Protein backbone atom coordinates (compact mmCIF):
# COMPACT_ATOMS: atom_id res chain seq x y z
CA UNK A 1 0.00 0.00 0.00
CA UNK A 2 1.49 3.26 -1.10
CA UNK A 3 -0.25 5.60 1.36
CA UNK A 4 1.90 8.47 0.24
CA UNK A 5 0.61 8.29 -3.33
CA UNK A 6 -2.97 7.92 -2.12
CA UNK A 7 -2.61 10.97 0.08
CA UNK A 8 -1.07 13.12 -2.65
CA UNK A 9 -3.73 12.31 -5.28
CA UNK A 10 -6.45 12.87 -2.70
CA UNK A 11 -5.18 16.30 -1.73
CA UNK A 12 -4.77 17.21 -5.39
CA UNK A 13 -8.34 16.11 -6.05
CA UNK A 14 -9.66 18.58 -3.49
CA UNK A 15 -8.60 21.50 -5.69
CA UNK A 16 -8.37 19.71 -9.04
CA UNK A 17 -10.18 20.26 -12.33
CA UNK A 18 -13.12 17.98 -11.51
CA UNK A 19 -13.73 19.81 -8.24
CA UNK A 20 -13.67 23.17 -10.05
CA UNK A 21 -16.05 22.02 -12.81
CA UNK A 22 -18.49 20.35 -10.42
CA UNK A 23 -18.34 23.26 -8.00
CA UNK A 24 -19.38 25.70 -10.76
CA UNK A 25 -22.14 23.35 -11.94
CA UNK A 26 -23.30 22.99 -8.35
CA UNK A 27 -23.27 26.75 -7.69
CA UNK A 28 -25.65 27.00 -10.65
CA UNK A 29 -27.86 24.22 -9.29
CA UNK A 30 -27.79 25.88 -5.88
CA UNK A 31 -29.15 29.12 -7.37
CA UNK A 32 -31.89 27.28 -9.22
CA UNK A 33 -32.80 24.54 -6.76
CA UNK A 34 -31.41 25.74 -3.43
CA UNK A 35 -32.68 29.30 -3.58
CA UNK A 36 -35.48 29.40 -6.18
CA UNK A 37 -36.74 25.82 -5.78
CA UNK A 38 -36.49 25.09 -9.52
CA UNK A 39 -35.88 21.42 -10.24
CA UNK A 40 -33.49 21.77 -13.16
CA UNK A 41 -32.35 18.23 -13.88
CA UNK A 42 -30.63 19.30 -17.08
CA UNK A 43 -27.62 21.16 -15.71
CA UNK A 44 -25.37 18.86 -17.78
CA UNK A 45 -26.99 20.27 -20.93
CA UNK A 46 -26.08 23.82 -19.92
CA UNK A 47 -22.44 22.81 -19.53
CA UNK A 48 -22.69 20.81 -22.74
CA UNK A 49 -24.02 23.56 -24.99
CA UNK A 50 -21.44 25.98 -23.59
CA UNK A 51 -18.52 23.59 -24.06
CA UNK A 52 -19.67 22.57 -27.53
CA UNK A 53 -20.55 26.14 -28.48
CA UNK A 54 -16.95 27.14 -27.83
CA UNK A 55 -15.29 23.98 -29.16
CA UNK A 56 -17.28 23.86 -32.40
CA UNK A 57 -16.75 27.56 -33.11
CA UNK A 58 -12.99 27.20 -32.78
CA UNK A 59 -12.33 23.64 -33.99
CA UNK A 60 -14.95 23.24 -36.74
CA UNK A 61 -15.31 26.78 -38.04
CA UNK A 62 -11.83 28.08 -37.15
CA UNK A 63 -13.17 31.25 -35.58
CA UNK A 64 -11.52 33.13 -32.68
CA UNK A 65 -11.53 31.75 -29.12
CA UNK A 66 -13.40 34.69 -27.56
CA UNK A 67 -16.12 34.43 -30.19
CA UNK A 68 -16.40 30.78 -29.15
CA UNK A 69 -16.90 31.84 -25.52
CA UNK A 70 -19.54 34.36 -26.58
CA UNK A 71 -21.37 31.72 -28.62
CA UNK A 72 -21.19 29.29 -25.70
CA UNK A 73 -22.72 31.89 -23.36
CA UNK A 74 -25.40 32.77 -25.90
CA UNK A 75 -26.26 29.10 -26.43
CA UNK A 76 -26.71 28.69 -22.67
CA UNK A 77 -29.10 31.65 -22.47
CA UNK A 78 -31.07 30.37 -25.47
CA UNK A 79 -31.33 26.91 -23.87
CA UNK A 80 -32.57 28.44 -20.61
CA UNK A 81 -35.30 30.35 -22.45
CA UNK A 82 -36.26 27.32 -24.53
CA UNK A 83 -36.69 25.24 -21.39
CA UNK A 84 -38.17 27.97 -19.24
CA UNK A 85 -40.80 29.62 -21.42
CA UNK A 86 -43.06 26.57 -21.74
CA UNK A 87 -42.47 25.09 -18.28
CA UNK A 88 -41.94 27.84 -15.71
CA UNK A 89 -45.64 28.71 -15.68
CA UNK A 90 -46.46 25.13 -14.77
CA UNK A 91 -45.84 23.17 -11.57
CA UNK A 92 -42.25 22.43 -10.59
CA UNK A 93 -42.37 18.78 -11.67
CA UNK A 94 -42.82 19.74 -15.30
CA UNK A 95 -39.53 21.61 -15.36
CA UNK A 96 -37.81 18.51 -13.95
CA UNK A 97 -39.28 16.26 -16.66
CA UNK A 98 -38.56 18.67 -19.49
CA UNK A 99 -35.01 19.47 -18.41
CA UNK A 100 -33.96 15.86 -17.95
CA UNK A 101 -35.33 15.02 -21.40
CA UNK A 102 -33.75 18.11 -22.97
CA UNK A 103 -30.35 17.20 -21.51
CA UNK A 104 -30.52 13.80 -23.15
CA UNK A 105 -31.66 15.32 -26.45
CA UNK A 106 -28.72 17.72 -26.39
CA UNK A 107 -26.26 14.89 -25.67
CA UNK A 108 -27.71 12.64 -28.36
CA UNK A 109 -27.60 15.43 -30.95
CA UNK A 110 -23.94 16.03 -30.12
CA UNK A 111 -23.08 12.37 -30.61
CA UNK A 112 -25.34 11.73 -33.62
CA UNK A 113 -23.81 10.46 -36.86
CA UNK A 114 -25.89 12.91 -38.86
CA UNK A 115 -24.13 15.95 -37.36
CA UNK A 116 -20.71 14.36 -36.90
CA UNK A 117 -19.19 16.82 -39.40
CA UNK A 118 -20.06 19.63 -36.97
CA UNK A 119 -19.97 18.06 -33.49
CA UNK A 120 -17.61 15.18 -34.20
CA UNK A 121 -19.93 12.34 -33.17
CA UNK A 122 -18.95 10.29 -30.12
CA UNK A 123 -15.30 11.38 -30.46
CA UNK A 124 -16.28 15.01 -29.94
CA UNK A 125 -13.97 17.89 -30.80
CA UNK A 126 -10.32 18.62 -30.04
CA UNK A 127 -7.81 21.31 -31.03
CA UNK A 128 -9.62 24.36 -29.69
CA UNK A 129 -7.72 25.16 -26.49
CA UNK A 130 -4.59 26.61 -28.13
CA UNK A 131 -5.63 30.26 -27.71
CA UNK A 132 -6.50 29.68 -24.08
CA UNK A 133 -3.13 28.17 -23.21
CA UNK A 134 -1.39 30.83 -25.29
CA UNK A 135 -2.63 33.27 -22.64
CA UNK A 136 -0.94 31.20 -19.92
CA UNK A 137 1.23 33.55 -17.81
CA UNK A 138 2.97 30.63 -16.08
CA UNK A 139 6.26 29.56 -17.72
CA UNK A 140 6.79 25.80 -18.17
CA UNK A 141 7.51 23.98 -14.95
CA UNK A 142 5.66 22.70 -11.93
CA UNK A 143 3.91 24.84 -9.33
CA UNK A 144 2.82 23.89 -5.86
CA UNK A 145 4.00 22.81 -2.44
CA UNK A 146 6.30 19.80 -2.43
CA UNK A 147 4.69 16.77 -4.06
CA UNK A 148 1.32 18.52 -4.36
CA UNK A 149 2.08 20.39 -7.53
CA UNK A 150 0.74 20.78 -11.03
CA UNK A 151 2.30 21.53 -14.40
CA UNK A 152 1.90 25.02 -15.91
CA UNK A 153 -1.15 24.10 -17.99
CA UNK A 154 -3.08 22.65 -15.07
CA UNK A 155 -1.96 25.51 -12.83
CA UNK A 156 -3.32 28.02 -15.36
CA UNK A 157 -6.69 26.33 -15.71
CA UNK A 158 -7.04 25.89 -11.94
CA UNK A 159 -6.17 29.56 -11.39
CA UNK A 160 -8.87 30.64 -13.82
CA UNK A 161 -11.27 28.12 -12.31
CA UNK A 162 -10.84 29.20 -8.70
CA UNK A 163 -11.02 32.89 -9.64
CA UNK A 164 -14.32 32.18 -11.40
CA UNK A 165 -15.58 30.25 -8.37
CA UNK A 166 -14.65 33.17 -6.11
CA UNK A 167 -16.47 35.62 -8.39
CA UNK A 168 -19.56 33.41 -8.58
CA UNK A 169 -19.65 32.95 -4.81
CA UNK A 170 -19.36 36.71 -4.36
CA UNK A 171 -22.19 37.21 -6.84
CA UNK A 172 -24.42 34.69 -5.06
CA UNK A 173 -23.60 36.26 -1.69
CA UNK A 174 -24.54 39.77 -2.87
CA UNK A 175 -27.69 38.61 -4.66
CA UNK A 176 -29.03 36.45 -1.87
CA UNK A 177 -28.56 39.20 0.72
CA UNK A 178 -30.61 41.56 -1.46
CA UNK A 179 -34.36 41.96 -1.96
CA UNK A 180 -33.90 40.12 -5.27
CA UNK A 181 -32.71 37.04 -3.40
CA UNK A 182 -35.55 37.43 -0.93
CA UNK A 183 -38.09 37.17 -3.75
CA UNK A 184 -36.32 34.05 -5.03
CA UNK A 185 -36.39 32.35 -1.63
CA UNK A 186 -40.03 33.31 -1.19
CA UNK A 187 -40.87 31.72 -4.57
CA UNK A 188 -39.25 28.51 -3.33
CA UNK A 189 -41.58 28.56 -0.33
CA UNK A 190 -44.85 29.44 -2.07
CA UNK A 191 -45.14 31.12 -5.40
CA UNK A 192 -48.84 31.98 -5.11
CA UNK A 193 -48.13 33.99 -1.99
CA UNK A 194 -45.42 35.88 -3.87
CA UNK A 195 -47.79 36.53 -6.76
CA UNK A 196 -50.39 37.89 -4.35
CA UNK A 197 -47.78 40.42 -3.19
CA UNK A 198 -47.34 41.86 -6.67
CA UNK A 199 -44.14 40.12 -7.83
CA UNK A 200 -43.77 38.74 -11.34
CA UNK A 201 -42.91 35.17 -10.37
CA UNK A 202 -42.32 33.98 -13.94
CA UNK A 203 -39.71 36.65 -14.54
CA UNK A 204 -37.79 35.81 -11.35
CA UNK A 205 -37.84 32.10 -12.09
CA UNK A 206 -36.50 32.80 -15.57
CA UNK A 207 -33.75 35.01 -14.16
CA UNK A 208 -32.76 32.24 -11.75
CA UNK A 209 -32.75 29.64 -14.51
CA UNK A 210 -30.59 31.79 -16.79
CA UNK A 211 -28.21 32.81 -14.01
CA UNK A 212 -27.78 29.22 -12.76
CA UNK A 213 -27.22 28.06 -16.33
CA UNK A 214 -24.62 30.76 -16.97
CA UNK A 215 -22.66 29.93 -13.81
CA UNK A 216 -22.80 26.24 -14.72
CA UNK A 217 -21.67 26.94 -18.28
CA UNK A 218 -18.42 28.43 -16.97
CA UNK A 219 -17.77 24.93 -15.64
CA UNK A 220 -18.50 23.62 -19.13
CA UNK A 221 -15.83 25.88 -20.66
CA UNK A 222 -13.25 24.82 -18.05
CA UNK A 223 -14.10 21.15 -18.46
CA UNK A 224 -13.52 21.36 -22.21
CA UNK A 225 -10.35 23.48 -21.92
CA UNK A 226 -8.86 21.44 -19.10
CA UNK A 227 -9.18 18.23 -21.07
CA UNK A 228 -8.47 20.02 -24.38
CA UNK A 229 -11.36 17.99 -25.73
CA UNK A 230 -15.15 17.68 -25.59
CA UNK A 231 -17.06 14.43 -25.76
CA UNK A 232 -20.84 14.10 -25.63
CA UNK A 233 -20.82 11.49 -22.89
CA UNK A 234 -19.14 13.84 -20.43
CA UNK A 235 -22.50 15.60 -20.24
CA UNK A 236 -24.74 12.68 -19.34
CA UNK A 237 -27.43 12.76 -16.67
CA UNK A 238 -25.10 11.39 -13.94
CA UNK A 239 -23.29 14.69 -14.17
CA UNK A 240 -26.42 16.55 -13.09
CA UNK A 241 -27.11 14.09 -10.29
CA UNK A 242 -23.57 14.50 -8.94
CA UNK A 243 -24.12 18.25 -8.94
CA UNK A 244 -27.32 17.78 -6.92
CA UNK A 245 -25.52 15.41 -4.54
CA UNK A 246 -22.87 18.07 -4.01
CA UNK A 247 -25.43 20.78 -3.26
CA UNK A 248 -27.31 18.62 -0.78
CA UNK A 249 -24.07 17.41 0.77
CA UNK A 250 -22.94 20.97 1.40
CA UNK A 251 -26.39 22.17 2.43
CA UNK A 252 -28.85 23.79 0.00
CA UNK A 253 -29.15 27.58 -0.14
CA UNK A 254 -25.73 28.30 1.38
CA UNK A 255 -23.13 30.33 -0.50
CA UNK A 256 -20.10 28.06 -0.01
CA UNK A 257 -21.87 24.73 0.21
CA UNK A 258 -21.43 23.80 -3.48
CA UNK A 259 -17.69 24.49 -3.33
CA UNK A 260 -17.04 22.55 -0.13
CA UNK A 261 -19.48 19.87 -1.26
CA UNK A 262 -17.63 19.43 -4.56
CA UNK A 263 -14.27 19.18 -2.81
CA UNK A 264 -15.54 16.58 -0.33
CA UNK A 265 -17.29 14.61 -3.07
CA UNK A 266 -14.14 14.34 -5.19
CA UNK A 267 -11.86 13.74 -2.23
CA UNK A 268 -14.08 10.84 -1.20
CA UNK A 269 -14.24 9.41 -4.72
CA UNK A 270 -10.51 9.66 -5.32
CA UNK A 271 -9.51 8.47 -1.86
CA UNK A 272 -11.80 5.45 -1.88
CA UNK A 273 -10.92 4.63 -5.50
CA UNK A 274 -7.16 4.80 -4.97
CA UNK A 275 -7.24 2.96 -1.66
CA UNK A 276 -9.25 0.16 -3.24
CA UNK A 277 -6.98 -0.19 -6.25
CA UNK A 278 -3.86 -0.16 -4.07
CA UNK A 279 -5.40 -2.77 -1.81
CA UNK A 280 -6.32 -4.97 -4.77
CA UNK A 281 -2.86 -4.81 -6.28
CA UNK A 282 -1.37 -5.58 -2.87
CA UNK A 283 -3.65 -8.64 -2.70
CA UNK A 284 -5.27 -7.46 0.52
CA UNK A 285 -8.87 -7.91 -0.60
CA UNK A 286 -10.82 -11.14 -1.26
CA UNK A 287 -10.70 -12.37 -4.85
CA UNK A 288 -14.24 -11.06 -5.31
CA UNK A 289 -12.69 -7.63 -5.89
CA UNK A 290 -10.70 -7.19 -9.06
CA UNK A 291 -9.15 -4.24 -10.84
CA UNK A 292 -12.15 -4.30 -13.20
CA UNK A 293 -14.92 -3.97 -10.65
CA UNK A 294 -13.47 -1.66 -8.00
CA UNK A 295 -14.68 1.33 -10.02
CA UNK A 296 -18.24 0.26 -9.29
CA UNK A 297 -17.43 -0.63 -5.67
CA UNK A 298 -15.98 2.84 -5.22
CA UNK A 299 -19.32 4.43 -6.13
CA UNK A 300 -21.16 2.03 -3.84
CA UNK A 301 -18.97 2.98 -0.89
CA UNK A 302 -19.20 6.70 -1.61
CA UNK A 303 -22.98 6.35 -1.99
CA UNK A 304 -23.14 4.60 1.37
CA UNK A 305 -21.08 7.35 2.96
CA UNK A 306 -23.34 10.06 1.54
CA UNK A 307 -26.43 8.22 2.77
CA UNK A 308 -25.01 8.02 6.27
CA UNK A 309 -24.15 11.71 6.16
CA UNK A 310 -27.67 12.65 5.13
CA UNK A 311 -29.21 10.39 7.77
CA UNK A 312 -27.14 11.89 10.57
CA UNK A 313 -26.87 15.41 9.17
CA UNK A 314 -29.87 15.95 6.86
CA UNK A 315 -29.28 19.68 6.57
CA UNK A 316 -25.89 19.09 4.92
CA UNK A 317 -22.63 20.54 6.17
CA UNK A 318 -23.58 24.22 6.24
CA UNK A 319 -27.34 23.81 6.61
CA UNK A 320 -29.42 25.06 9.51
CA UNK A 321 -31.10 22.26 11.43
CA UNK A 322 -34.02 24.52 12.31
CA UNK A 323 -34.96 24.77 8.63
CA UNK A 324 -35.18 21.00 8.27
CA UNK A 325 -37.30 20.86 11.41
CA UNK A 326 -39.77 23.25 9.76
CA UNK A 327 -40.34 20.82 6.90
CA UNK A 328 -41.41 18.15 9.35
CA UNK A 329 -44.20 20.30 10.79
Amino acid at each position, binding site marked *: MDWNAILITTVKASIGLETVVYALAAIGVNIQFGYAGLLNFGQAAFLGVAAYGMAVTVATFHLPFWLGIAIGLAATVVLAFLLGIPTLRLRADYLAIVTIAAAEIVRLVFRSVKFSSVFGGSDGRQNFSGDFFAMNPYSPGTYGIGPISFNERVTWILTVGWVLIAICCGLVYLLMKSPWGRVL*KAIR*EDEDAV*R*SLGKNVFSYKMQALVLGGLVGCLGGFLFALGQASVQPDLFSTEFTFYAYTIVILGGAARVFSPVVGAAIFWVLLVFVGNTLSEAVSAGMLPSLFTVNNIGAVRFMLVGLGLMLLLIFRPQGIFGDK*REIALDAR
Partner: protein
Amino acid sequence: MHADSTTTRKAAALAAFAGLDREPGVAKPDPILVVDNVVRRFGGLTAVDVAHLEIQRGSITALIGPNGAGKTTFFNQLTGFDSADEGSWAFNGKQLKGVPAHRVARTGMVRTFQLTKALSKLTVMENMRLGAQNQRGENFFRALVPGSWRQQEDEITERAEELLERFKLNTKRDDFAGSLSGGQRKLLEMARALMVGPELVMLDEPMAGVNPALTQSLLAHVKDLREEGMTVLFVEHDMDMVRDISDWVVVMAQGAVIAEGPPDTIMSDQRVVDAYLGAHHDAPMSAEEFEEQLQEAEAELEAEIEEKA
Protein backbone atom coordinates in the same frame (compact mmCIF):
# COMPACT_ATOMS: atom_id res chain seq x y z
CA MET B 1 -60.76 58.64 20.38
CA HIS B 2 -60.51 55.31 18.64
CA ALA B 3 -64.09 54.44 19.48
CA ASP B 4 -65.29 57.72 17.96
CA SER B 5 -63.63 57.15 14.63
CA THR B 6 -64.97 53.58 14.64
CA THR B 7 -68.50 54.79 14.98
CA THR B 8 -68.13 57.45 12.31
CA ARG B 9 -66.53 55.15 9.74
CA LYS B 10 -69.02 52.44 10.48
CA ALA B 11 -71.87 54.93 10.39
CA ALA B 12 -70.67 56.22 7.04
CA ALA B 13 -70.51 52.69 5.67
CA LEU B 14 -73.95 51.88 7.04
CA ALA B 15 -75.42 55.13 5.72
CA ALA B 16 -74.23 54.18 2.24
CA PHE B 17 -76.20 50.97 2.47
CA ALA B 18 -79.35 52.51 3.98
CA GLY B 19 -82.44 52.05 1.90
CA LEU B 20 -80.73 49.82 -0.65
CA ASP B 21 -82.72 47.10 -2.33
CA ARG B 22 -82.10 43.53 -1.20
CA GLU B 23 -81.88 42.24 -4.75
CA PRO B 24 -78.70 40.58 -6.04
CA GLY B 25 -76.58 43.04 -8.01
CA VAL B 26 -78.10 46.15 -6.47
CA ALA B 27 -76.22 49.37 -7.38
CA LYS B 28 -74.12 50.95 -4.60
CA PRO B 29 -73.49 54.69 -4.24
CA ASP B 30 -69.69 54.47 -4.64
CA PRO B 31 -68.54 51.04 -5.83
CA ILE B 32 -64.80 50.24 -5.80
CA LEU B 33 -65.30 46.93 -7.61
CA VAL B 34 -67.93 46.29 -10.29
CA VAL B 35 -68.43 42.77 -11.61
CA ASP B 36 -70.42 41.91 -14.73
CA ASN B 37 -71.44 38.48 -16.06
CA VAL B 38 -68.46 36.56 -14.75
CA VAL B 39 -68.68 32.90 -15.68
CA ARG B 40 -66.32 30.05 -14.88
CA ARG B 41 -66.98 26.53 -16.08
CA PHE B 42 -65.09 23.37 -15.20
CA GLY B 43 -66.14 21.03 -17.99
CA GLY B 44 -69.93 20.71 -17.65
CA LEU B 45 -70.05 22.31 -14.20
CA THR B 46 -70.70 26.04 -13.97
CA ALA B 47 -68.81 26.97 -10.82
CA VAL B 48 -69.39 30.71 -11.02
CA ASP B 49 -72.07 32.67 -12.85
CA VAL B 50 -72.36 36.15 -11.34
CA ALA B 51 -74.54 38.54 -13.36
CA HIS B 52 -73.75 41.78 -11.57
CA LEU B 53 -72.15 42.73 -8.28
CA GLU B 54 -70.88 45.96 -6.78
CA ILE B 55 -68.70 46.34 -3.70
CA GLN B 56 -69.10 49.59 -1.78
CA ARG B 57 -65.91 51.57 -1.08
CA GLY B 58 -64.89 51.91 2.57
CA SER B 59 -67.13 49.12 3.80
CA ILE B 60 -66.68 45.58 5.08
CA THR B 61 -68.58 43.24 2.80
CA ALA B 62 -68.99 39.56 3.63
CA LEU B 63 -69.35 36.91 0.97
CA ILE B 64 -71.15 33.89 2.36
CA GLY B 65 -72.78 30.79 0.98
CA PRO B 66 -72.99 27.04 1.48
CA ASN B 67 -70.02 24.81 0.69
CA GLY B 68 -69.38 24.56 -3.04
CA ALA B 69 -71.18 27.86 -3.77
CA GLY B 70 -68.16 29.07 -5.77
CA LYS B 71 -66.97 31.75 -3.35
CA THR B 72 -63.30 30.86 -3.49
CA THR B 73 -63.38 30.30 -7.26
CA PHE B 74 -64.97 33.74 -7.64
CA PHE B 75 -62.23 35.18 -5.42
CA ASN B 76 -59.55 33.50 -7.49
CA GLN B 77 -60.95 34.98 -10.68
CA LEU B 78 -61.21 38.51 -9.37
CA THR B 79 -57.59 38.39 -8.16
CA GLY B 80 -56.17 36.84 -11.33
CA PHE B 81 -55.33 33.44 -9.81
CA ASP B 82 -57.80 31.73 -12.11
CA SER B 83 -59.06 32.87 -15.50
CA ALA B 84 -62.73 33.62 -16.13
CA ASP B 85 -64.41 32.10 -19.19
CA GLU B 86 -66.57 35.16 -19.73
CA GLY B 87 -67.38 38.52 -18.22
CA SER B 88 -65.57 41.60 -17.04
CA TRP B 89 -64.81 43.33 -13.78
CA ALA B 90 -63.40 46.73 -13.00
CA PHE B 91 -61.46 47.84 -9.94
CA ASN B 92 -61.52 51.62 -9.54
CA GLY B 93 -62.69 51.76 -13.15
CA LYS B 94 -59.74 49.70 -14.42
CA GLN B 95 -60.66 46.54 -16.32
CA LEU B 96 -58.98 43.51 -14.76
CA LYS B 97 -60.08 40.59 -16.91
CA GLY B 98 -57.02 38.70 -18.13
CA VAL B 99 -54.66 40.72 -15.93
CA PRO B 100 -52.14 38.39 -14.20
CA ALA B 101 -52.28 38.05 -10.41
CA HIS B 102 -49.18 40.11 -9.66
CA ARG B 103 -50.49 43.10 -11.65
CA VAL B 104 -53.86 42.85 -9.91
CA ALA B 105 -52.03 43.11 -6.58
CA ARG B 106 -50.09 46.14 -7.83
CA THR B 107 -53.33 47.98 -8.65
CA GLY B 108 -54.17 47.83 -4.93
CA MET B 109 -56.38 44.75 -4.69
CA VAL B 110 -54.58 42.31 -2.40
CA ARG B 111 -55.78 38.94 -1.20
CA THR B 112 -54.99 36.37 1.47
CA PHE B 113 -55.55 32.64 1.24
CA GLN B 114 -57.83 30.16 2.92
CA LEU B 115 -54.84 27.96 3.71
CA THR B 116 -52.33 30.44 5.03
CA LYS B 117 -49.25 30.89 2.94
CA ALA B 118 -46.62 31.98 5.41
CA LEU B 119 -43.23 31.64 3.74
CA SER B 120 -41.88 29.14 6.29
CA LYS B 121 -38.13 29.42 5.82
CA LEU B 122 -38.13 33.20 5.74
CA THR B 123 -38.19 35.11 8.99
CA VAL B 124 -41.27 37.06 10.00
CA MET B 125 -39.46 40.29 9.11
CA GLU B 126 -38.43 39.00 5.67
CA ASN B 127 -42.05 37.99 5.06
CA MET B 128 -43.10 41.55 5.83
CA ARG B 129 -40.40 43.20 3.73
CA LEU B 130 -41.43 41.09 0.76
CA GLY B 131 -44.82 42.79 0.72
CA ALA B 132 -43.44 46.27 -0.04
CA GLN B 133 -43.86 47.45 -3.61
CA ASN B 134 -41.46 49.10 -6.09
CA GLN B 135 -38.34 47.86 -4.34
CA ARG B 136 -35.20 48.96 -6.12
CA GLY B 137 -33.27 45.98 -4.78
CA GLU B 138 -35.64 43.57 -6.48
CA ASN B 139 -34.03 44.40 -9.81
CA PHE B 140 -31.23 41.96 -10.62
CA PHE B 141 -28.56 44.54 -11.43
CA ARG B 142 -29.37 47.01 -8.67
CA ALA B 143 -29.41 44.10 -6.20
CA LEU B 144 -25.66 43.80 -6.79
CA VAL B 145 -25.10 47.36 -5.51
CA PRO B 146 -26.31 47.34 -1.90
CA GLY B 147 -25.93 51.14 -1.71
CA SER B 148 -28.75 51.54 -4.21
CA TRP B 149 -31.38 49.83 -2.06
CA ARG B 150 -30.17 50.11 1.57
CA GLN B 151 -32.02 53.29 2.35
CA GLN B 152 -35.29 52.05 0.92
CA GLU B 153 -34.82 48.79 2.81
CA ASP B 154 -34.51 50.73 6.06
CA GLU B 155 -37.73 52.60 5.35
CA ILE B 156 -39.50 49.34 4.55
CA THR B 157 -38.17 47.78 7.75
CA GLU B 158 -39.45 50.70 9.78
CA ARG B 159 -42.92 50.39 8.26
CA ALA B 160 -42.85 46.62 8.80
CA GLU B 161 -41.92 47.09 12.44
CA GLU B 162 -44.87 49.41 13.01
CA LEU B 163 -47.23 46.86 11.47
CA LEU B 164 -45.70 43.98 13.44
CA GLU B 165 -46.19 45.91 16.63
CA ARG B 166 -49.81 46.56 15.75
CA PHE B 167 -50.34 42.86 15.06
CA LYS B 168 -48.39 41.89 18.22
CA LEU B 169 -45.83 39.94 16.25
CA ASN B 170 -42.87 42.18 17.08
CA THR B 171 -41.41 39.64 19.50
CA LYS B 172 -41.39 37.07 16.68
CA ARG B 173 -39.52 39.40 14.32
CA ASP B 174 -36.53 37.14 13.72
CA ASP B 175 -38.24 33.75 14.01
CA PHE B 176 -38.93 31.62 10.98
CA ALA B 177 -42.52 32.14 9.84
CA GLY B 178 -42.87 28.35 9.82
CA SER B 179 -42.52 28.29 13.61
CA LEU B 180 -45.62 30.47 14.19
CA SER B 181 -48.97 29.07 15.30
CA GLY B 182 -51.93 28.93 12.88
CA GLY B 183 -53.46 32.11 14.22
CA GLN B 184 -50.18 34.00 14.18
CA ARG B 185 -49.70 32.98 10.56
CA LYS B 186 -53.10 34.48 9.73
CA LEU B 187 -52.03 37.69 11.44
CA LEU B 188 -48.72 37.67 9.59
CA GLU B 189 -50.44 37.10 6.28
CA MET B 190 -52.76 40.02 6.90
CA ALA B 191 -49.92 42.27 8.02
CA ARG B 192 -47.89 41.26 4.98
CA ALA B 193 -50.82 42.08 2.70
CA LEU B 194 -50.95 45.54 4.29
CA MET B 195 -47.29 46.09 3.36
CA VAL B 196 -48.47 46.16 -0.26
CA GLY B 197 -50.52 49.25 0.55
CA PRO B 198 -53.88 47.93 -0.69
CA GLU B 199 -57.15 49.78 -1.24
CA LEU B 200 -59.19 46.62 -1.30
CA VAL B 201 -58.24 43.73 0.99
CA MET B 202 -59.73 40.38 0.07
CA LEU B 203 -59.64 37.84 2.90
CA ASP B 204 -60.43 34.22 2.10
CA GLU B 205 -61.76 32.68 5.33
CA PRO B 206 -59.68 34.75 7.75
CA MET B 207 -61.01 32.81 10.75
CA ALA B 208 -60.45 29.28 9.48
CA GLY B 209 -58.22 27.35 11.87
CA VAL B 210 -57.75 30.25 14.29
CA ASN B 211 -58.06 29.50 18.00
CA PRO B 212 -60.95 31.35 19.72
CA ALA B 213 -58.62 33.47 21.83
CA LEU B 214 -57.16 35.04 18.70
CA THR B 215 -60.51 35.48 16.95
CA GLN B 216 -61.35 38.68 18.79
CA SER B 217 -57.99 40.25 18.02
CA LEU B 218 -58.29 39.24 14.37
CA LEU B 219 -61.79 40.73 14.20
CA ALA B 220 -60.50 43.97 15.65
CA HIS B 221 -57.76 44.07 13.02
CA VAL B 222 -60.29 43.61 10.22
CA LYS B 223 -62.37 46.48 11.62
CA ASP B 224 -59.19 48.59 11.80
CA LEU B 225 -58.73 48.16 8.06
CA ARG B 226 -62.00 49.97 7.45
CA GLU B 227 -61.01 52.69 9.93
CA GLU B 228 -57.92 53.31 7.82
CA GLY B 229 -60.08 53.83 4.79
CA MET B 230 -59.56 50.44 3.17
CA THR B 231 -62.33 48.34 1.72
CA VAL B 232 -62.63 44.74 2.88
CA LEU B 233 -64.27 41.83 1.09
CA PHE B 234 -64.10 38.53 2.92
CA VAL B 235 -65.34 34.98 2.60
CA GLU B 236 -66.48 33.43 5.86
CA HIS B 237 -68.55 30.57 7.22
CA ASP B 238 -68.79 31.74 10.80
CA MET B 239 -72.08 33.69 10.94
CA ASP B 240 -71.31 35.20 14.33
CA MET B 241 -68.27 36.83 12.86
CA VAL B 242 -70.18 37.98 9.79
CA ARG B 243 -72.85 39.58 11.96
CA ASP B 244 -70.24 41.19 14.17
CA ILE B 245 -68.07 42.96 11.62
CA SER B 246 -69.70 43.19 8.22
CA ASP B 247 -71.68 46.17 6.94
CA TRP B 248 -73.22 44.29 4.04
CA VAL B 249 -73.57 40.63 3.14
CA VAL B 250 -73.58 39.03 -0.30
CA VAL B 251 -74.89 35.47 -0.50
CA MET B 252 -73.78 33.05 -3.18
CA ALA B 253 -75.28 29.66 -3.98
CA GLN B 254 -74.48 27.35 -6.86
CA GLY B 255 -72.20 29.94 -8.43
CA ALA B 256 -74.68 32.82 -8.51
CA VAL B 257 -75.36 35.73 -6.18
CA ILE B 258 -78.82 35.00 -4.80
CA ALA B 259 -79.30 37.80 -2.28
CA GLU B 260 -77.70 40.81 -0.66
CA GLY B 261 -78.53 42.69 2.48
CA PRO B 262 -77.49 43.93 5.89
CA PRO B 263 -76.07 41.25 8.22
CA ASP B 264 -78.81 41.34 10.84
CA THR B 265 -81.65 40.51 8.44
CA ILE B 266 -79.96 38.57 5.66
CA MET B 267 -80.23 35.19 7.39
CA SER B 268 -84.01 35.50 7.60
CA ASP B 269 -84.28 36.13 3.84
CA GLN B 270 -86.26 33.25 2.34
CA ARG B 271 -83.83 32.79 -0.57
CA VAL B 272 -80.90 32.47 1.82
CA VAL B 273 -82.73 30.03 4.07
CA ASP B 274 -83.63 27.96 1.00
CA ALA B 275 -80.05 27.99 -0.25
CA TYR B 276 -78.65 26.80 3.05
CA LEU B 277 -81.36 24.34 4.09
CA GLY B 278 -83.18 23.40 0.88
CA ALA B 279 -86.55 24.75 -0.34
CA HIS B 280 -88.73 22.15 1.42
CA HIS B 281 -86.84 21.95 4.63
CA ASP B 282 -89.61 22.67 7.11
CA ALA B 283 -92.96 22.07 5.33
CA PRO B 284 -94.31 18.55 5.53
CA MET B 285 -95.11 17.21 2.10
CA SER B 286 -98.82 17.04 1.26
CA ALA B 287 -100.35 14.06 -0.55
CA GLU B 288 -100.76 16.15 -3.75
CA GLU B 289 -97.14 17.25 -3.71
CA PHE B 290 -96.02 13.69 -3.21
CA GLU B 291 -98.17 12.55 -6.14
CA GLU B 292 -96.80 15.38 -8.27
CA GLN B 293 -93.17 14.49 -7.52
CA LEU B 294 -93.85 10.85 -8.23
CA GLN B 295 -95.35 11.69 -11.62
CA GLU B 296 -92.46 13.97 -12.45
CA ALA B 297 -89.97 11.25 -11.65
CA GLU B 298 -91.89 8.73 -13.73
CA ALA B 299 -92.09 11.09 -16.67
CA GLU B 300 -88.36 11.64 -16.46
CA LEU B 301 -87.69 7.94 -16.42
CA GLU B 302 -89.92 7.35 -19.41
CA ALA B 303 -88.25 10.11 -21.34
CA GLU B 304 -84.90 8.53 -20.59
CA ILE B 305 -86.04 5.09 -21.72
CA GLU B 306 -87.44 6.55 -24.95
CA GLU B 307 -84.20 8.38 -25.58
CA LYS B 308 -82.22 5.18 -25.25
CA ALA B 309 -84.62 3.28 -27.52
